[in-house]
């Protein structure tokens, strides 16, 4: 049924708000199982919009969406998509709406029809796997920014999705939490698309980087020689890059 592990197949998706240029303009995307795709693009290039279209939160004005080999059109189709694809929102305060961490993490499993005890067990397991054991009774709005982000990830992972869509997960995180997030993502056995502006983070957490510009995916394999400014230790002294002199 899944064509060679093709999970997400977007074809010529258009989306726009009236009176403004299109946010998405004939966007096409193929996403395969096992992929860890990094997605870059300037602000307003339509990355978040694309995620919301995959999840059925926004309706495209034109185009075709196929997920797990099946065309998805109506709200009912998207309900199944949401069971198998998890979306991590940019702002953790949007994602965490329950008073306590336990209730929030158990919310998804309960919606999937799990019993209270099962949901609690899943929540406990998920929290533990993210190094958040004992967080169950913490009040969500009193968590720190990094903790909120990790708990949000737990609420998504608790639904045991096959694919993750992560929308700028490192915004506002310090280096230590960012490293922890990289470790967690690397340890997951899930395919994901990761939106970020952080080149270093993308390099560590993804297998390839795709660019978005003007509402569409830019396929650009051409090698272009270029120069750029960079920073590193001892940069003051005369030095060389990427070439070994013959001994």
């Amino acid at each position: 049924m899944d064509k060679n592990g093709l999970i997400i197949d977007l074809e010529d998706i258009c989306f726009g708000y009236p009176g403004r240029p299109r946010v998405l303009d004939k966007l096409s995307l193929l996403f395969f199982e096992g992929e860890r795709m990094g997605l870059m693009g300037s602000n307003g290039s339509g990355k978040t919009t694309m995620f919301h279209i995959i999840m059925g939160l926004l309706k495209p004005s034109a185009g075709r969406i196929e997920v797990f080999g099946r065309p998805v059109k109506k709200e009912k189709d998207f309900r199944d998509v949401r069971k198998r694809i998890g979306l991590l929102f940019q702002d953790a305060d949007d994602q965490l709406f329950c008073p306590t961490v336990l209730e929030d993490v158990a919310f998804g499993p309960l919606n999937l029809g799990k019993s209270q005890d099962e949901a609690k067990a899943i929540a406990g397991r998920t929290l533990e796997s993210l190094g958040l054991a004992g967080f169950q009774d913490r009040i969500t709005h009193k968590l720190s920014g990094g903790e909120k982000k990790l708990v949000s990830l737990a609420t998504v992972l608790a639904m045991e999705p096959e694919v993750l869509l992560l929308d700028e997960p490192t915004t506002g995180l310090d280096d230590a939490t960012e490293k922890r997030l990289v470790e967690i993502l690397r340890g997951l056995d899930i395919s994901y698309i990761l939106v970020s502006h952080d080149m270093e983070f993308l390099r560590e957490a993804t297998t390839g980087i795709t660019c978005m510009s003007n509402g569409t995916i830019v396929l650009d394999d051409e090698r272009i020689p270029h120069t750029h400014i960079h920073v590193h230790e001892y940069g003051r002294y005369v030095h060389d890059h990427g070439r070994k002199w013959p001994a």
Partner: protein
Amino acid sequence: MLEEEFVSNGCLIHRLDPRVKIVVVFLFSVFVAVSNRFVIMLAALALGLSIVLLSRLPIKQLVRRLVPANMFILFLWLFLPFTFVGEPLFSAGPLVATHEGVLCAAQISIKSNAIMVMLIALVTSTPILTLGHAMHELRVPKKIVHLFFFTYRYIHVIHREYLRLVSAMKVRGFRPGTNMHTYKTYAYLVGMLLVRSSDRAERVLNAMLCRGFRGNLYSLSAFSLKPHDVISLVLMLALILALGVLEWTKMA
């Protein structure tokens, strides 16, 4: 915002089952609100105060909470005696205060303070989350419980947004005064908060839909009635009933 300062001092009243507290406060408020005799109102006030003493609430903070409500009552004292028709009691210039007016103002003062003292003693000693779950257990309509929870969860977020906006205004030299510029700025502030809250609500709903939300929220907590809960409930119900009987015997 909403610091739960009366929660967790571990005494008997605080450990009561929240459902018992809600039922008692509700019935007590209804009885006091409809009562007509001063004896009953004073007895109710005494009952409220004794529960405050029992629960060892910090008196200073209790008074601090009573002050704003009593400011309203102060206004009643300014207007009611002079606007009620009845037997004249004294006059201040062209204004005549009536006996009935003074009595009415006194009634309102005692009643509202009795109810407030009871509310503070029983309800504010319960964490807000527990209250919500107790409401759910008492079969309060789901929508009300959800509104309650969401308000609690997001009032902090909105408050933070408000503080951010206020500091953004301050760092650009805004100083409130009595002028058009100030009014306009505050109107923008309120408008912006509304818009942001509505956007936030949209995003929260989206996040919930992504996690399979179909209109149901589930509660994970369970309460159990212990012997001291049952005893307290029966005792309080008996006292409230006694107040009711006092009121009724007067009518008969």
